[in-house]
């Protein structure tokens, strides 16, 4: 091993640790959010006096135009944004693994049809499909938004799963399992899906990174989470109503989104590398 690759590995490891730490802090924040505060506007004269305050000891992230504490709103927003991302990814994994797994096992004809459907979905801009679905949705809530983002996001995952299943079903150990009289479903559960799991996990983590900005964009446009429930996108929307002199209103949500997407990508990339290096041994 050369010095250059050693240095690269060390840098990767450092990046990986930063990413993990960032995500852990965000998750911890999301978990404690309800105990920190409700994010509601104060009562009495403070409603007027405490509007658009810059960060201070009382309000570490400042306040917004309704005198609401931004830290409280940020923590609640983290809860909403991460919640949407995790729920949506779960939906994507369920649909994607089922679709890809069935296509991988299916006879060529069925497989072709299933994959053409995936191609068609991937050829249509996702934001367009989501906006169309949003427009016919009566009541937008966190689970509904997660469902919408999930059922539009799985095609890529199903391709990963199908490719892996295709690789695994021609292995000798699957042939050996058949030679032992193992039923097909048992082969799928015992031999094929465990082999596909690492790639699926890596792809799933990377999927989270695609959901976060999408949710933020939708909420920013007013098509996602409805105010006053805060999400990172909703918080950014607040900024647009106010001049940029309240820099903290823009900075904190933007940094949160960027840091999350970056961390998730670093983590997912690391898992992917780990997966492919694991296969070669």
């Amino acid at each position, binding site marked *: 091993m050369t010095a250059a690759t050693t240095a690269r590995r060390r840098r990767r490891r450092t990046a990986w640790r930063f990413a993990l730490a960032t995500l852990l802090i965000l998750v911890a924040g999301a978990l404690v959010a309800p105990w920190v505060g409700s994010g509601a506007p104060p009562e009495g004269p403070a409603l007027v006096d405490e509007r658009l305050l810059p960060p201070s000891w009382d309000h570490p992230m400042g306040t917004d135009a309704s005198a609401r504490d931004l830290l409280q709103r940020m923590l609640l927003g983290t809860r909403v944004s991460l919640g949407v991302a995790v729920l949506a990814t779960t939906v994507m994994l369920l649909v994607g693994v089922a679709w890809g797994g069935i296509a991988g096992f299916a006879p060529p004809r069925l497989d072709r049809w299933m994959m053409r459907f995936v191609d068609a979905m991937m050829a249509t801009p996702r934001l367009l499909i989501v906006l169309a679905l949003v427009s016919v949705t009566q009541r937008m809530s966190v689970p509904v938004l997660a469902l919408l983002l999930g059922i539009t996001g799985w095609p890529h995952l199903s391709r990963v799963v199908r490719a892996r299943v295709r690789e695994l079903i021609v292995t000798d*150990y699957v*042939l050996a*399992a*058949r030679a*032992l*009289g*193992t039923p097909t479903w*048992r082969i799928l559960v*015992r031999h094929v899906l465990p082999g596909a799991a690492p790639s699926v996990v890596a792809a799933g983590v990377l999927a989270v990174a695609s959901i976060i900005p999408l949710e933020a964009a939708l909420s920013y446009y007013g098509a996602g989470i409805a105010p006053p429930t805060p999400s990172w996108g909703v918080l950014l929307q607040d900024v647009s109503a106010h001049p940029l002199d309240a820099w903290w209103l823009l900075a904190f949500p933007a940094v949160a989104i960027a840091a999350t997407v970056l961390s998730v990508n670093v983590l997912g990339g690391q898992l992917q590398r780990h997966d492919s290096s694991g296969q070669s041994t």
Partner: protein
Amino acid sequence: MTPLLSVENLRVTYAGRDADRIAVDDISFTVEPGEIVALVGESGSGKTATGLAIMGILSPNARVAPGGAIRFEGRDLLATPEKELRDLRGRRISMVFQEPAAALNPVMRVGDQVAEVALVHGERDRHAARSRAVEMLVRVGLADAERQYRSYPHELSGGMRQRVMLAIALLLKPALVIADEPTSALDVTVQAQVLSLLLDLQRESQTAVLFITHDLGVVAETCSRALVMRAGAIVEAASVDDLFHAPKHPYTRDLLAAMPRIVSSR
């Protein structure tokens, strides 16, 4: 006595890009209970396709031509529904593969892979399956079987892995084992050990073995009869004695002549 296995006019073709390729061309042979029969030939001669056809696990692009039959314990496997075949596979008839490193699931403990055979074939009690597997691992010579039960295939040597494969194939004492080049991927010294283990297990459980190999030295040591295959057809079927002393077919003579031997300089 009716033979344990009787292959009649078996033809296997693989769908090719332009035309079908014939892998097995109208072969017939029998295997008696407890007998070891060699299926000899160079690679590509259709030995493995024959084995896979008997197991009923040919790849989807392969086809068994109508008109043939594979009778095992009295019934035609080609006319048996898949569900009943699954019940036979692993229990009455099993297979040992050439590459134990590839035929074992890399992410499953080897002991669990042995126990899996019992679980697939109706064993409900996980602990019973586990203890049977440990017992079998001891039998195939894994020292400290309790610990090695928990190993993954990559933690074992090639010889150990093939011992595990034998444990899997023979756990339920099948009537027939198809051993497809079981020692070809191993070191020469390990080959001899694994081979003698296979023979011990065969004697104990009175299992018949269809021994697929290209190694005539192994044939002479282990088998009673040999079938010589070439280009999908059986060109000679004889007892091992006759085969070595009086080979009839020119191809058999070529094979024998191609055997490496130690020449003394007397």
